[in-house]
């Protein structure tokens, strides 16, 4: 059985600001990490591999060459091998172009997959769209916001616990399918010294646009249906007043005064 985990490298977002003169993102010196929700997906893949036999795991990412470090992290955690889609021609992809490129890669190189795991969203773009778009293009069912996965019926089906607005649902679906993770199995992914060394020996293949059977016009910015026309800093809300609350009685009084002013009480 083959499990594909699609992952994204993201900047540590707190530091991203806009250069007020050029209006472009200032990303210099910002560290990159494996998106935390993708890490959940990796952990889930590894947990399934541990719990069931004969499971191959492959991590796929699209990004600049420096995204190798996110895939290396996957390999250190225990993923079998990795593919990085890196080419200037992929640059500027929106969620559709990203999903389309990933889908074509999976179709041409890993079409015998049984399960695709993704994080529920990336913490930078925060769209949560690539997963569902990928499953639609691959024409497979999707289950979003999963917190637990069991393989059933001789690994032909999955039973998934997923979050819904009012609680949780248990959902079953026949494989192949795509599942997005809201939470990981918390298996503790601190890699051992040996695992870190072993990861260097694993396959990390860089795939260029020319190796895919996609027309150039369908890649990157050209292949994107949406276009960013402007980026700008958000309006900063005027800060209200901050008072000292070291004396509870006084603080509570002031708070109630404020609530009365605002007609809450």
């Amino acid at each position, binding site marked *: 059985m083959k499990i594909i985990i699609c992952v994204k490298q993201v*900047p540590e*977002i*707190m530091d*991203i*600001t*806009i250069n007020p003169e050029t209006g472009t993102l200032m990303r210099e010196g910002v560290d990159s990490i494996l998106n935390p*929700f993708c890490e959940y997906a990796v952990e889930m893949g590894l947990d399934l591999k541990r719990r069931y036999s004969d499971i191959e795991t492959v991590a796929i990412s699209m990004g600049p060459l420096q995204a190798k470090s996110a895939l290396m992290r996957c390999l250190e955690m225990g993923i079998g091998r990795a593919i990085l889609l890196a080419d200037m021609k992929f640059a500027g992809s929106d*969620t559709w172009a990203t999903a389309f490129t990933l889908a074509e890669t999976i179709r041409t190189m890993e079409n015998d997959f049984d399960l695709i795991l993704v994080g529920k*969203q990336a*913490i*930078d*773009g*925060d*769209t949560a*769209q690539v*997963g*569902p*778009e990928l499953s*639609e293009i691959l*024409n497979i*069912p*999707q289950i979003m*916001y999963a917190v637990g996965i069991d393989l059933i019926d001789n690994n032909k089906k999955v*039973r998934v616990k997923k*979050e819904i*607005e*009012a*609680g*949780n*649902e*248990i*959902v*079953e*679906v*026949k494989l192949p*399918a795509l599942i997005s993770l809201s939470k990981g199995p918390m298996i503790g992914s601190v890699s051992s010294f040996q695992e870190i060394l072993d990861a260097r020996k694993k396959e990390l293949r860089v795939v260029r646009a020319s190796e895919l059977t996609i027309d150039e016009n369908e890649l990157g910015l050209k292949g994107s*249906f*949406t*276009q960013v*026309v402007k*980026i*700008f*800093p*958000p309006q900063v*809300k005027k*800060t*209200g007043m*901050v*008072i*000292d*609350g*070291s004396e*509870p009685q006084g*603080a509570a*009084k*002031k708070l*109630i005064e*404020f609530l009365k002013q*605002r007609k809450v*009480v």
Partner: protein
Amino acid sequence: MLTINFEKCTGCKICEKVCPFGAIVVIDAIAQVQDNCTLCGACVNSCPVDALSIERKPVPKEELDTFSGIFIWGECEERDKGTTPKKVVRELLAQGRKLADSLDQALTVVVLGDDKMQGLEALITYGADRVMRCQHKLLGRFTTDSFTNVIAVIISIEKPSIFLFGATPHGRELAPRVAARLHCGLTADCTGLEINEKGELVQTRPAFGGNIMASIVSPYTRPQMATVRPNVFSFEDPDSSRKGEIVNFNVVLSPAAIKTKVVAIERLRDEKEVSIEDAGIIVSAGRGCQKKENLKLIQELADTLGGVTAGSRAIVELDWIPHTKQVGQSGLTVGPQLYMAVGISGAIQHLVGMNSAKTIIAINKDPDAPIFKVADLGIVGNAMEILPVLIRELKRVK
């Protein structure tokens, strides 16, 4: 164009059953496409042997201009034994009304459900020109497969210029599936929508956890699709003098189209309890509350103020509260009259989930906590000492 791979086709007739237009007939154990195919894609997803595929060509500019009408998804929730449109639908109607007026196009709300759908007339009073009622026994519970099928069919028949969804958990499952099926651009979690001089929908959304805003257009595809963050747009009181119509849409849906099967549901919030998305007053707890037992104080304060409790991602991960009460980027977006943040430092991921609250009060020990940057009133102090006094005083003045 819809093509059928005759080598793969087994003549099982599932596509014939799921096609809402009767555009596929199986003759001599092989499926054949008729002229009335609208490329809605319902069959492609239902085929068990992957024999069907649709090739979509880019749509020429002149044809894009023929797409007309603002459509929104009228997402429902269970309430009082029925399903009624969620609050976010009223927000979308108010925003959709403005777009419809500036483009001089009609506003349609599409509601999917079974015979328990209620409250559709009210949608007209909130701004809809037309309510499209899609009733089918397989639509009683949300599934991505069934809802995607029905909405893709409606879009391929009606050809609207804009289609909006609430950026709720279900909206964010459904919209990308529909957009990918019909090859449409989609913008996630918008907080601003307007029409530019070219008549295009300009969709503005936060990125990088709210540190940056981006304005996005979909110049090449129609409908222009977006999910819209709940609790950002306001809506007016209903206007009972507004005129509109409710039309029934004939839903064709087969169980074969639905691949996922719900085998159990665990409710962590009962139907009567107000969702934090709809609450007017929220008392929200963070890790600064120190231990789970202290949440009793949070509950007592919420009860005293007539509100509900919520919390940060940190305390959901500690299992102090269920995920149904999580505020923030990876939880729910709230927009109450009063949001009281107790022991929440206010990471940007939390702030984007609550900064549209009318009034924000924060209590935190750390004077440098980012929550104070958005608070109307900030109190630097130990919440666990202040709260008991506050509750006592509030009970006295009430």
